């Protein structure tokens, strides 16, 4: 594919730059220091706890490395990262536990 027209590419880049910034700016920029209603704040307290797991869950169940086939090594690694992070409240320990589990099980499988 070498026939993408440079103008098209620049239009895409510019539109996405403006659009992405607008999405990021919309609340922090326009609402700013104004107080938001209680019901909204109550929902926003759970944004991180909801979105981050939702983003990761499909990648764990259908990992790209196995072309989307559920796989024990990836599931165990995910479980260990979550569990160790939860128990120790330390992100680095969680990452190390997850990575060690993944590499260990992938090594055993080969």
């Amino acid at each position, binding site marked *: 594919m070498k026939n993408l027209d440079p103008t098209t590419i620049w239009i895409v880049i510019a539109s*996405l730059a403006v659009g992405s910034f607008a999405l*990021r700016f919309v609340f922090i920029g326009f609402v700013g220091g104004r107080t938001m209603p209680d019901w909204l704040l109550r929902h926003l307290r759970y944004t991180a706890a909801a979105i981050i797991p939702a983003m*990761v869950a499909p990648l764990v169940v259908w990992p790209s490395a196995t072309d989307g086939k559920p796989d024990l090594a990836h599931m165990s690694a995910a479980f260990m990262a979550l569990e160790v992070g939860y128990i120790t409240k330390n992100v680095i320990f969680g990452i190390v536990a997850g990575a060690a589990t993944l590499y260990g099980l992938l090594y055993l499988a080969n």
Partner: protein
Amino acid sequence: MAITTTKSYYWRGFLDGSPFLLMALPFGMLFGVLATEAGLSVVQTMSFSAAVFAGAAQFTALHLLNDNAPTIVAILSALAVNLRVAMYSASLTPYLGAAPLWQRVFAAYFTIDQSYACSMMQFEKEPRMSVSERLRYFFGVVSPLTPAWLVATYLGAVVGTRIPESWGLDFALPITFLAMIGPMLRTPAHVVAALVAIVVALLTTTVPFNLGLLIAGCAGMMAGARCELILDRRRAAA
């Protein structure tokens, strides 16, 4: 962490953001490689990474352009994939909204999964942080990641370096974020929010444009908020 008391919030953010280099580097390189393979010049590739600064949206747009999708479809699909950053923006507003406008402009530009997730964890852990301390932390998180993302894009575009798949770094993204979820689950309501979001996310993977993620996120937030109300009521009655 007890030894961090004297360390500035900027450096705390820097340290907390650093593990994400494990994903910023391979994904940045991959974007550089795929973009140049699709026919983008090095200048275009770098402008893309610097101006849009949103991995998943960039890959989506590139993929669709490569498939000869209409330009408007590529743009709208990539923005749809990026809709979650509007939720991040809303969620950060109670913490950073009081900052001066020019600082909020920068905070908006640097709102990515990593800066958002690290910041929310830190801001909830230390609710007494001042707005300027929070901003310093926030910018600390993106400080290692932004240059890494750009350098990696450049290496991918110019040298064509890719990290071999056998290194398994594609799974660095799930593992790093999973390790962060644990500390985020501070109350039963947070656990309920996460569980509902996971179930809905797994059920909605076929929804186009990654919109299942938004549906799952909203469902999780509603479940968490409802659970908080129920628990508060019970506590008040007891």
